[in-house]
């Protein structure tokens, strides 16, 4: 099931022959090749010219110098990168924010190692990473001054929302999936209705409801901090989607497995934890990583309910009259940051898919 290739395969493919086959097999193909390469070269040249050759990198340069040079004004990044990465976090304490980001990124990298892919190991890695992050960011212990959640911002806040969503959402998703697959009809149906309702709503409306409406609905002592309400909403949304992915993975597990376990007298919780879920997760791994990618991108939606995360601090970075002209550079920088995370994750997902495909063959 690879790309369709019906052309005759030459017995000895010379490099020149291969180029001819790939790019110039017919007049139409030649035209398309020339057009595509022309477009690529043109875009590449424009970007190189704007972003590197005529760009200004010095931190001292301002609008006048940048305009004179005629290219990108990376001075805005040189001046404002701390605001973009750390938001309104106290200036002297920003090393903590940086360390916390590194801790979370290390956690994400660690969880890509197959050795850690058992329920207990992966859970402890994430709990440890999250605890390190929280301790570093919040402080108030070990001589670190306390920094309240309102002051968190930038990349650190984005990563915090993402990890918290994953840590709360994943167990919730497993619970949803098991409940929806329950043999008791009313439990299955009610859970199904809840999942479908959440899935049909846009995430923004859920975040909005959690941030602005929930205070009316909840008694005073629950979820006072707006950040945690929004995380709860985001986790619920993640769980609804992830539950369906896990359920799809469960459907791929042969029924005989469960029946065999039952006939051996293995209790339900062991059947689920040791037989059903490990196989379901294996089946659902590519889709799960895809869901993580989407969730990471969707953390940027919290800007709508007034959080100072990466995108919002980027908007602030060119918000002063001094830098208002340099919005393209700031957005390119932020897009690049998102791109690194998302592209890395999705490449890893593609790698896993190939790796598992060889195992199944």
């Amino acid at each position, binding site marked *: 099931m690879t790309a369709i290739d019906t052309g005759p395969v030459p017995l000895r493919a010379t490099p020149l022959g291969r180029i001819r086959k790939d790019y110039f097999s017919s007049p139409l193909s030649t035209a398309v*090749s020339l057009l*595509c390469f022309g477009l*690529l070269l043109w875009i590449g040249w424009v970007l190189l010219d704007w972003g590197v050759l005529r760009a200004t990198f010095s931190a001292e340069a301002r609008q006048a110098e940048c305009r004179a040079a005629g290219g990108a004004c990376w001075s805005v990044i040189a001046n404002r990168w701390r605001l973009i990465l750390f938001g309104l976090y106290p200036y002297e304490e920003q090393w903590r924010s940086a360390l916390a980001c590194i801790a979370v990124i290390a956690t994400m990298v660690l969880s890509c190692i197959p050795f850690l892919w058992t329920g207990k190991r992966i859970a402890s890695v994430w709990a440890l990473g999250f605890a390190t992050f929280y301790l570093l960011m919040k402080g108030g212990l070990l001589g670190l001054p306390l920094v309240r959640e309102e002051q968190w911002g930038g990349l650190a806040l984005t990563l915090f929302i993402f990890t918290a969503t994953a840590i709360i959402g994943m167990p919730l998703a497993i619970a949803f999936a098991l409940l929806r697959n329950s043999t008791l009809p009313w*439990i299955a149906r009610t859970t199904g209705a809840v999942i479908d309702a959440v899935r*049909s709503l846009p995430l923004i*409306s859920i975040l909005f409801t959690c941030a602005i409406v929930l205070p009316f609905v909840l008694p005073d002592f629950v979820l006072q901090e707006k950040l945690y309400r929004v995380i709860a909403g985001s986790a619920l949304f993640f769980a609804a989607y992830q539950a369906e992915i896990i359920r799809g993975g469960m459907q791929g597990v042969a029924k005989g497995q469960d029946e065999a376990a039952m006939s051996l007298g293995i209790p339900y919780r062991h059947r689920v934890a040791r037989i059903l879920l490990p196989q379901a997760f294996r089946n659902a791994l590519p889709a799960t990583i895809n869901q993580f990618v989407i969730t990471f991108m969707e953390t940027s939606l919290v800007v709508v309910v007034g959080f100072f995360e990466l995108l919002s601090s980027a908007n602030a970075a060119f918000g002063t009259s001094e830098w208002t002209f340099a*919005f393209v550079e700031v957005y390119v920088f932020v*897009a690049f940051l998102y*791109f690194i995370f998302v592209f890395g994750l*999705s490449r890893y997902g593609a790698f896993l898919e190939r790796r598992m495909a060889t195992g199944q063959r």
Partner: protein
Amino acid sequence: MALLQHQKSRNALLQILYVGVLLALVVTAALTARHNLQAQGILSGWNFLWKSTGWDMTFSLLPTSSSDPYWWVLLMGVLNTLFLGIIGLTFATLVGGLVGLARVSDNKAARLLGTIYLEIFRNIPLIVQVFFWYALANRLPSPRQAIEAGGALLSNRGIYLPGLNIAGWSVAAGFLTLALGLTLLLWLALARRFRRVPPVLRRRRGLAVMLVTLVTLAAIFFLGHTPGTPLLTLPELKGLNIRGGYRIQPEVYALAFAIAIYGGAYIGEIVRGGFIAVGTGQTEAAKALGLSEWQSFTRIRLPLAIRAMLPILTNQYVWLIKATTLGIVVGFADFFMVVASAITHSGQTLELIGILMAGFLIINFSLAAVMNRINRAIALKGHQNRS
């Protein structure tokens, strides 16, 4: 105790407990909310729907004013969401089709271009792209220095296209006619009941539908034409602003553009998957029968690929419709933004959240229903050869 020993009664009890706890949660939340809102002097109920809003919509297809009642403004919000959704979906599908075809073509250069496009635009959050295009649209030159391109004017107030000098109602009627005509054409082409009709007759019927649609359109435009003005107006600079033609606001086109670009990347991947799902044997059989490249593409690969990609496409469409809620970050009055501002102005939180949920449920379920209907109509009966 004996009751708990029995499997059946234990199951029943468990279910009652589960549903009961969920219901209790919802009811407590609703009661607390009602109590808290009443403490602020807001009465619950649906009466507010008939009160006038007191604020203006930033964009609406039909005329609105600040004295319109809430139900009308909410309805306009739904219309805006559908409007943007349809534009976004159409262009995303076009872009996606192009990208997908490039990605499955034999030409490596086209494949490379498609891959680069896909990887760049799929891996940057949609909201970042919306912000970027909107910022760019707002920094176009002022109307005085507007960029001219083939009769259209580009400025920071919006894109001005050449338009027809016709009344608002006839524009709406025209769009309705066009939509009806297209639906009818699609139905004629796809519905099972016309499967047996000979192609000549089918083509003739299709032509008739097109002709009737065009004639009706012309009649509507003729009736709606403001007397004493030329039918076609070109946008031109008058004083400080641009007059004439159609204005597309920056919010609308920035959002539609971002959705088309981002959605196109995802749909491109779906299209590629659809073509890959067509068995190699099918293409080889087509070749063996002496079909040309073009025939094999239009008659064999494309129809089979569409069947393979349609179910996934439905999910993507639902997702893109939900993405129109990003209108709130650029100030486009979509359904969600209208509901959000209605909440801040009227305080009828619970009712409006209910309306929001119901609205999106209805939109998404009808979209899914239409797509499933198409899916069923074109599905191959019997077996589907996939390898």
